[in-house]
C-alpha cells in the first residue's frame, strides 16, 4: 500500500465498518447481527455508526445466544439475505461451533451447490493485553482446518476494507478474523503499521492471494495479522546486519496461496513462519509442510516456527509477553537457522 499525499488513514475498525456500510447502502440484503454491535458499535468498534445510519432492523443486537443467531444467519443467508454476524471473541467458538462448521460451512456441499450460504462471520482474535486464556486466543488453525469456509486474517486497514468487501460479496461463507491488537482501539494499544491509507470508494481484494509486503533475498518470513508487523520489525533488525528478509502477508488462510510462499522460498532458501496461534497441529506446521512436500531442495536450512507455545494463555503480563511471538524471536530463529 503506497501512501499518497493528503491520504486518509483509517484504523482496521473503521475500515471494516466503512466496508460494511458501503455494502449495506448498495445491497439491502446485507444486515448485521451480534452482541453489542448496535448502540455500542461493537466492543471492538467495527460496527460503529451503523445503527445511526441503518437502524435497528438491519443492525440487530442479539441475546447471548451464539448458536441461535449464527444458525439464524445461515437460514437467512440461504433465504436471500447476506448476514454479517459477529462472534465477539473467537474464544467463544466452543458454544456455537456446530452452527459454524457443520451448518454454515457444509450446507452448500450437502445441497450439491444448490443452496448457498453467503454470510460473513466476524470475530476478534489475539492477546497481549492480559485478557487471559478465554479472551486472547487466535485459533486460526482451528477454523482453517475445517472445510467449507473461507478464512480471512487482515493485517492492515487497507486490506481490512477490501477483504471485507470481497467477503460480503462472496457467495460462500467467510470467517473474518480481526486481531484486537491491530484494531486501532486506543484501549487495546495500537500497532501503527495497521493504520494506513484507505480509499473512500469500495474496492475488493481477492480472497486467496497473499501479498509480499517486503521483498528480500535471504529469508522468507510468513505471517498473518500481528505476525506480519512482527515480521517487518524483524526484517528491519536483520537489515541492520545486512540480512535481506522477505515478508509475506498471507491475508487469507483459506484459500491458502501456496504458490506465493513456495516461490519466495525458492528464492530465499529459508523459511520462518510467525503464528500467534498454538504451535502444534496448526498454521505453522501447515505452511512448512506445504513448502517441503512440493520441493524439499528449495530449503538451505531447517524451517523455523515462531508460534504460541502449546499452553493456555496466562494472565500475568510477564508470562504472557514471554509466550507471544515477537520480532526478537524471529531474529533469533534466523540466527538458529544460519548457525545450523
Amino acid at each position: 500500500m503506497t501512501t499518497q499525499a493528503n491520504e486518509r488513514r483509517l484504523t482496521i475498525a473503521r475500515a471494516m465498518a466503512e466496508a460494511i456500510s458501503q455494502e449495506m447502502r448498495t445491497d439491502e440484503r446485507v444486515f448485521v447481527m451480534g452482541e453489542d454491535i448496535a448502540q455500542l458499535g461493537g466492543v471492538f468498534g467495527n460496527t460503529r455508526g451503523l445503527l445511526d445510519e441503518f437502524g435497528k432492523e438491519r443492525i440487530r443486537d442479539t441475546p447471548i445466544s451464539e448458536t441461535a443467531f449464527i444458525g439464524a444467519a445461515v437460514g437467512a443467508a440461504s433465504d436471500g439475505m447476506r448476514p454479517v454476524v459477529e462472534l465477539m471473541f473467537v474464544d467463544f467458538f466452543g458454544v456455537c461451533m456446530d452452527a459454524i462448521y457443520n451448518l454454515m460451512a457444509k450446507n452448500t456441499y450437502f445441497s450439491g451447490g444448490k443452496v448457498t450460504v453467503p454470510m460473513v462471520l466476524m470475530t476478534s482474535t489475539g492477546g497481549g493485553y492480559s485478557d487471559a486464556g478465554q479472551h486472547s486466543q487466535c485459533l486460526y488453525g482451528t477454523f482453517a482446518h475445517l472445510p467449507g469456509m473461507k478464512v480471512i486474517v487482515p493485517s492492515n486497514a487497507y486490506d481490512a476494507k477490501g477483504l471485507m468487501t470481497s467477503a460480503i460479496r462472496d457467495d460462500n461463507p467467510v470467517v473474518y478474523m480481526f486481531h484486537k491488537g491491530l484494531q486501532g482501539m486506543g484501549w487495546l494499544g495500537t500497532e501503527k503499521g495497521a493504520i494506513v491509507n484507505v480509499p473512500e470508494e469500495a474496492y475488493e481484494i481477492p480472497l486467496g492471494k497473499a501479498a509480499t509486503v517486503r521483498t528480500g533475498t535471504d529469508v522468507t518470513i510468513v505471517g498473518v495479522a500481528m505476525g506480519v508487523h512482527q515480521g517487518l520489525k524483524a526484517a528491519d533488525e536483520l537489515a541492520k546486519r545486512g540480512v535481506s528478509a522477505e515478508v509475506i502477508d498471507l491475508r487469507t488462510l483459506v484459500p491458502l496461496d501456496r504458490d506465493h510462499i513456495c516461490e519466495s522460498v525458492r528464492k530465499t532458501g529459508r523459511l520462518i513462519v510467525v503464528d500467534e496461534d498454538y504451535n502444534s497441529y496448526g498454521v505453522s506446521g501447515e505452511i512448512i509442510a506445504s513448502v517441503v512436500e512440493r520441493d524439499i531442495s528449495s530449503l538451505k536450512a531447517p524451517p523455523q516456527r515462531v508460534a504460541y507455545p502449546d499452553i493456555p494463555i496466562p494472565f500475568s503480563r510477564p508470562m504472557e509477553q514471554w509466550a507471544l511471538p515477537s520480532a526478537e524471536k524471529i531474529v533469533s530463529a534466523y540466527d538458529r537457522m544460519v548457525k545450523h
Partner: protein
Amino acid sequence: MQPTREQKLWMYENMLVSRFFEETIEKIYLEGKTPAFNMAAGPIPGEMHLSNGQEPCAVGVCAHLKATDIVTATHRPHHIAIAKGVDLKKMAAEIFGKTTGLSGGRGGHMHIFDANVNFSCSGIIAQGMGPAIGAALSRKMQKRDGVAVAFLGEGAANQGAFHETLNLASLWKLPVVFVIEDNAWGISVSKLDSTSVPRNDIRAQAYGMPGVFIPNNDTLAIFEAAGEAIARARKGDGPTLIEIETYRLAGHFMGDAEGYRPKGEVEGLRTKDPILVLKKNLLEKEKMKEGDLVKIETTARQCVDEAISFARESAYPAPEEAMIGVFV
C-alpha cells in the same frame, strides 16, 4: 378448523406415499446386508432412520404450507419431506447416492435439500432450529410472505439450541412454528429419563409463546392446531410451540435390536396405526367408498415405484465429483 374432505384425502395420500416409500426403502436397505448386517453394504448404505408411525405430524402441519414456506427437518426426514412436496424421484436417488439425487449424492438420507420447496434437514440434533428462525427473520425483513416450521424430536428439546432459538423467535416475534415429534424415545433413552417435565408444551411459557399439546398421534387434531399456529405466524403474531404425541413403529435406525423397548409396546402402537385411523374416518365420516381409497393407494404405490426405479436406474457420480460443490 377441521380439514375438508379434499384436505383429508391429501393427507391420506401423503401418509400412504410416505409409508409405502419407507416400506420399500426398508426392503432395499437390507439388500446386501444379510446374513451379516453391515451398514456399509448394499444399494443403500449408511444410517437409515424410518418415520413410519409419525406421518400425522408431517401431513397435519404441511397441509397448511406453500412451497414458498420453509421447513427444516431432522435425521428422520422422509415423511416430512414428502408432505412438503420434495421431489420424490430426486430424493430417492439421493438416498441411493446417485448423481441424479437432489445433491448428486453428497448428502444422502440425513441431508435432504430441495430448494424448490424450501426443505432441508440435517443430522445434528436441534440443528435445524437456527436456520428456521433465520429464514423466518429473512421473510420478516424482506416483508415477503412465508412461515418457517422447525421439526424436532422430543429428545432435541433438551439441547441448548432449543432454548436459544425459542427465546430469539419470541423476542423478535418471528413467523415460525416449532413442532416436536414426541415418539417417546431418543434412540434408547426414554422421554422420562431425559426430560424434567412431562410435556414440552409447558416450556413455551419460558418464552412467552403459546404451547400446544396433541395426544394420540391424532392427524385431525394436528391439522387443526398447526393450522392455527401457522395462521398466527403468517399474521405476524409470532411463534408457537407444538408437541405431538406420536409413535415410533420402527427402531431408532435400521439394525436397532430395540432391546431397551418394553415388550408389546410396538405391537400396541401398531393397532393404533394413524393411517388406519384416518382411513376409518374417510369411510365413516366422509362416506368414501373402499374403491376410491384403493385408487389412492394405487397412485401412491405408483409414484413410490417410479421414484425407486428412477433411483435404481440412475448412475453413480464419478468419484472425483466429490471435489465439486465445497464452494460455489
